[in-house]
């Protein structure tokens, strides 16, 4: 939403409040050193996180969350892209599918947790299915708009050259719509991580989401908060890498152009 955020340079001033808060929390913890089931001092959180990273438990949980999120993302992006391109190319098909798409799309991803649980049981497959369902829609909608917005002369050229459908999609449509498709991919990646963690927190005994719930239930606030910070870092890093890729691959034009 705010890719074009105000170009105010924060520099060191952006770090004042988070660093100040951490220092203050540590000082408060030192001033009243009692055990808590809810909160932990920043130093303890750091130690719990470092411990989990060294003994491999956090690494393993991160792997599980990322595998589920990325596998679901791959399926969702694939399906969304196929339908998005088809519907973007054919106005008739698009209008015919409007009602069906608009009735299935608003089903909240969380409502599918019990459905997926019933079909797949606990494990990777149920989580992947829900992530896939949730990531289909942004990709479908944005790639449909991207393909429908392609310069008509390009499509005429492909007709003159006698391209078949596959050639037309591969040589004309995907390259022309790629910047906007990448934006859809970036949004879908964020959604994939959110949905994966939601499924883990709610039901699935896997990954970082479940790790947080287990830490909470065993009254280990330091580990719970360490996992929270770690999840924030992963989300931030994923987004930063994709933003960087978008900027280097497609330039600033892609960001300005991609408003749906």
């Amino acid at each position, binding site marked *: 939403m705010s890719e*074009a955020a105000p170009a105010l340079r924060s520099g060191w001033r952006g770090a004042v409040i988070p660093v100040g808060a951490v220092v203050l929390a540590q000082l408060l913890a030192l001033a009243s050193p009692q055990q808590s089931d809810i909160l932990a001092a920043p130093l303890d959180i750091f130690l719990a996180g470092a411990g989990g990273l060294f003994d491999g438990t956090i690494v393993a949980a991160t792997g599980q969350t990322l595998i589920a999120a990325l596998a679901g993302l791959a399926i969702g992006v694939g399906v969304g892209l196929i339908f998005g391109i088809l519907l973007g190319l054919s106005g008739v098909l698009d*209008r015919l599918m409007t009602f069906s798409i608009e*009735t299935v799309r608003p089903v*909240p991803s969380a*409502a599918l947790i019990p*459905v997926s649980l019933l079909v797949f049981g606990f494990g990777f497959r149920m989580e992947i299915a829900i992530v896939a369902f949730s990531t289909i829609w942004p990709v479908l909608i944005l790639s449909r708009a991207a393909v429908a917005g392609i310069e008509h002369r390009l499509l005429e050229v492909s007709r003159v050259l006698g391209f078949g459908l596959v050639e037309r999609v591969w040589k004309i449509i995907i390259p022309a719509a790629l910047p906007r498709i990448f934006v859809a991919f970036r949004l879908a990646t964020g959604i994939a991580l959110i949905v994966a963690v939601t499924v883990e927190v709610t039901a699935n005994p896997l990954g970082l989401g479940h790790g947080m719930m287990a830490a*909470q239930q065993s009254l280990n606030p330091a580990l719970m908060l360490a996992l929270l910070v770690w999840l924030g870092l992963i989300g931030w890093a994923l987004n930063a890498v994709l933003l960087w890729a978008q900027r280097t691959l497609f330039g600033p034009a892609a960001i300005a152009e991609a408003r749906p």
Partner: protein
Amino acid sequence: MMALRATGWFLASLVVGAGLVVLWHYVVSAGFVSPVFLPPPGRAWTALVNGFTRGALAEQLLATIGRMIYGWLLASLVGVALGTLIGTSRAAIVYLGPTLEMIRPLPASAIIPVAIAFLGLTEQMAIAVIAFGALWPMLLATVHGFAAVEPQLYELSRALGLKRWEVILKIGLPSAMPDILAGMRVGLTIALILAIVAEMLASRPGLGHSVLLAARSFRSPDLYAGVILLGIVGYVSAAALAAFETRLLRWRVPH
């Protein structure tokens, strides 16, 4: 003529949708999918009707909608107020901006364990989680909306000698409104998802809890009835907000 054509296309897409339901029926009755996983559409429909006439579906529906709207309104109030304070102050953007951007990609559901630690499996926990999760898109959209106001408008307000609250009310808020409404739309989707998740975890009465119970006891018609109902809630709430948005933004020049 145009309207007639649009209606025609809508009817055609309705027929396609009905065709898919018929396909669903035949896929199940031909035994391609076990009815334990996917009930025939007729039985899901019966479960939906029975749930309203004899069961507690209406109460659960109202409980879920109430929770969603309450948390969302709370988030809207706090989000827009805080966003206005931050967005109209250069110092606040400079000092707080990077922190807000750091927290933005954090999955909202990750704060559920923290909320449970503080509040237990209670109604307050559910509301807090919904409100906190829905807060971020609105807060960030409001900050962005105020920060993106035409600088000339601020110069004009200075020339007119307007006070700060006048600038916010007369210039900032109207031009930030499209951003704020976009944030509120995202917030509403998140509020519904978190309402369902919180009900499942804390066993609060509501649709989220009832679909989970239906799945656990292999009552697939009840499960799909609940899922269909939740889809309708998502659709209607988004459509209502979109209608409100077009009314509120009617003054804008279309471009």
